């Protein structure tokens, strides 16, 4: 019996055109442990995983599983070998049913037994409390549900290695808790689990060991118990993290007086959000709080007219206006960073440069293209400002790591210098260091007089930045919380149902 090691990667290197994503990285996974893989955006975590599962061919290095050297040429081989993976960007097929997505590509049977598959799926969905029907088309499920389905699929595979790349990025606390319970159970069965996340608390909650990557190189492997959080952050960033606590003090006061920058009454949209009132003042930062699927995204989409607006009136700086299309919102100084980065945000094939200048360019108009030089200058400025890791401004955005893609979209809106900026989950998939940077940025913007609506599934993060929280449940606004004394518990209480006002039809 040769040790407990199930997976061993030695000297892994992988280069993409223009970047060295991995350089001589070692990674060891033992049976029955949860091993967190940590690092900043673009550190190479996802790449390491993809090299392991055969999505990418490695340039150098050796991978052994259970002592045997293996070389997967496709994810299929990895899967057949007992490696279950949930990739960072949900990789399911939107046109298949939920059940199919759970079982496709598995097993050797030549024909599908729909009854049995749906039955199995129902059981699996129920056991994990996933609110979806097996016969539903996947595209009808929300992102979170899709993520849960992907996890359910991987978990169900009876694998010896389970890899979870940021599985929790769009889950709520309840679901995270359930996922962790599941991970512990699998662990007890001897499964080795690789876990990637940017939530430090979560790391410490489930992980036994932590491997840190930085800029594609191995920093080290540590036992979770012996690595304090501060030190972990320092190792990830290669420097000490600025004081998070300091942020809170600089929280802006609500500008109570004066005309709101944006004001809506009875706004509703075709996506199904109930009519709601909303306003934001100059320099204010507010946010929508609520459980997953409570309609936060839909509300801000209604403000930006991303969905068809079906009712309500809107005033910008006191003037009554009609916002029927995103371009009208943009012209009024509203910017919107969408929640679904892949679907609504990036233009995958276009370059980082084009992605950055897109919104400003559109506002300039069809007949006023920026010169190449100007565009480069804009792109360079924001790549520096947000510390975006990209080989060049000409790289297609799809070649960037998830977190860096998010920064590009943020840059796009900052470049338009909006008066009012809506950020829906801007910190999803963003590393700790940058997360703090973004929070600081939001507050700095507010100081400069920009109004910001900030949505995050981390209530703590919202508390740190927002001066006012609008609470939603079941697609309707149920309350509003203000002032600095708020704690996470207060908010949870309101969200959970101590309703201040009933949800009226």
């Amino acid at each position, binding site marked *: 019996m040769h040790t407990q090691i199930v997976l061993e990667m030695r000297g892994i290197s992988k280069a993409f*055109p223009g970047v060295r994503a991995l350089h001589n990285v070692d990674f060891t996974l033992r049976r029955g442990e949860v091993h967190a893989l940590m690092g900043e955006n673009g550190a190479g975590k996802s790449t390491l995983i993809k090299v392991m599962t055969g999505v990418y061919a490695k340039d150098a290095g050796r991978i052994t599983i259970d002592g045997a050297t293996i070389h997967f040429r496709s994810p299929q081989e990895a899967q057949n070998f007992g490696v279950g993976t949930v990739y960072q960007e949900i990789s399911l097929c939107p046109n298949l049913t939920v059940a199919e997505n759970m079982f496709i590509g598995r097993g050797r049977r030549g024909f599908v037994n729909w009854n049995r598959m749906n039955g199995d799926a129902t059981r699996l969905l129920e056991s994990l409390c996933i609110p979806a029907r097996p016969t539903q088309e996947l595209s009808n499920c929300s992102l979170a549900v899709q993520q849960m389905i992907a996890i359910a699929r991987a978990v169900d595979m009876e694998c010896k290695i389970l890899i979870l790349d940021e599985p929790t990025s769009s889950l709520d606390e309840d679901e995270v808790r359930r996922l962790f319970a599941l991970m512990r159970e699998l662990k007890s069965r001897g499964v080795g689990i690789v876990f990637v996340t940017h939530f430090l608390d979560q790391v410490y909650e489930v992980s036994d060991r932590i491997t840190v990557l930085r800029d594609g190189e191995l920093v080290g492997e540590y036992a979770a118990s012996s690595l304090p959080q501060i030190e972990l952050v320092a190792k990830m960033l290669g420097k000490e993290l600025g004081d998070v606590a300091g942020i809170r003090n600089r929280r802006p006061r609500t500008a109570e007086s004066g005309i709101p920058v944006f004001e809506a009454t009875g706004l509703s949209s075709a996506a199904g959000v109930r009519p709601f009132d909303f306003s934001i003042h100059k320099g204010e930062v507010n946010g929508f709080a609520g459980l997953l699927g409570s309609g936060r995204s839909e509300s801000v989409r209604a403000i930006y007219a991303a969905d068809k607006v079906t009712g309500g009136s809107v005033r910008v700086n006191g003037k009554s206006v009609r916002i029927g299309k*995103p371009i009208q919102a943009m012209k009024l100084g509203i910017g919107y960073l969408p929640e679904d980065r892949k679907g609504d945000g990036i*233009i995958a*094939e276009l370059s980082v440069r084009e992605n950055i200048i897109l919104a400003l360019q559109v506002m300039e108009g069809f007949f006023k293209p920026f010169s190449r030089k100007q565009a480069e200058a804009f792109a360079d400025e924001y790549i520096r400002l947000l510390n975006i890791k990209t*080989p060049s401004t000409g790289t297609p955005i799809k070649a960037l790591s998830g977190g860096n893609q998010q920064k590009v979209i943020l840059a796009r809106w900052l470049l338009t210098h909006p008066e009012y900026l809506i950020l829906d989950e801007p910190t999803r998939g963003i590393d700790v260091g940058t997360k703090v940077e973004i929070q600081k940025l939001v507050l700095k913007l507010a100081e400069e007089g920009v109004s910001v609506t900030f949505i995050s599934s981390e209530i703590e993060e919202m508390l740190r930045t927002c001066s006012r929280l609008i609470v939603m449940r079941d697609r309707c606004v149920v309350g509003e919380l203000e002032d600095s004394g708020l704690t996470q518990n207060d908010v949870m209480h309101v969200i959970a149902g101590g309703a201040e006002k009933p949800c009226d039809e």
Partner: protein
Amino acid sequence: MRRVKATGFHLLLPLSVLAFLVVVNVIKGVDYFSLSVINGALYGNIPNILFGASELVVLAVGMTLVTSSSGGQDISVGVAGAITSSVFVAILLGADKITWWTIFAGFLAGCAVGVLIGAFNGSLVAVFKVQPMVATLILFTAGRSVAFLIDGKLSPILANDLTSRIGGVMPGVFIQTPILLTAVFIALIALLLKTTNLKLYAQSVGVNEKAARLNGIDPVAVKLLTFMLLGVCTAVAGFIAVCKAGRHDSVNLLKYIEMDAILAVAIGGNALGGGKFSVTGSIIGAYTIEVLNRTLLRLEVDTEAIKAVKAVFIIVLMVLASPVVRGYLANAVRRPRSGTQTGTVAEEAEDGWVSAPDAFRGREAP
């Protein structure tokens, strides 16, 4: 980061294909490039190629735009060219006397009809969300009859000096007029792409329509616009074709050119699934097809076998240029120097070379 000046990497496919064909031609006989002056115009293989490919080039340009924004192809371009040129001819023959002005007016009317046709196809695609190939199937089915009805009588004849100069050569000008018209057209398209955001808009819509809309682009308008531009292209192509032929043959004018136009776009390294595009590539692609056709004639391939030989040519060229084969070659070249030269390769990606041929793969970020 470093600026890489290497541009045009995406043109490798069409250019290498073209180069290969030229080499074949030169091996057949070194006289390939010989030029002479006949009747006051340059004559030789090269002018013949430029002359013969003019309509195809024009249509390939428009097809590229439509492909980019809508992710589909317009199969009615040949038919649309027949209709627009029938309008042109009708106006010319309706006038008392054919002057440069009537020709200009007829051309404009043709363009207007082209825009209308584009608007019709475009609105089916953009508003009713019909897939382009099916939307344009309507006109593909009905169009030649429409042209026939506009002609009124059968195959009207354009026997006059002015149009035959447009289809041939102007006195005192060294180069055949269709070549010049094509050059002017290409220049105008270059100007259009330079002075507007058409490329950015079309690509954004083609790659991710939802995201484009959230950034203030109106996908419906952009698709309509590209279809209308293609409509203008069909008018230009029809104009050149009918002036060349001197006769409006609603049956055969620009027949089967749609497949060649689509092929030109593909050979140009553009993904037929939409998104990033290179007009230059398509133009080279169009000339490549013309050269290929003439190469087969020059090699005196058996008439019966000519299509089969053409197919073999295309397949061999595409295999040599395929991403996989290219990947092997590139690896063989890159290996010894890996890690150091990052620049050019990064630019590769930017110009859509890497992603271009994935036409019908699911497009999305990794």
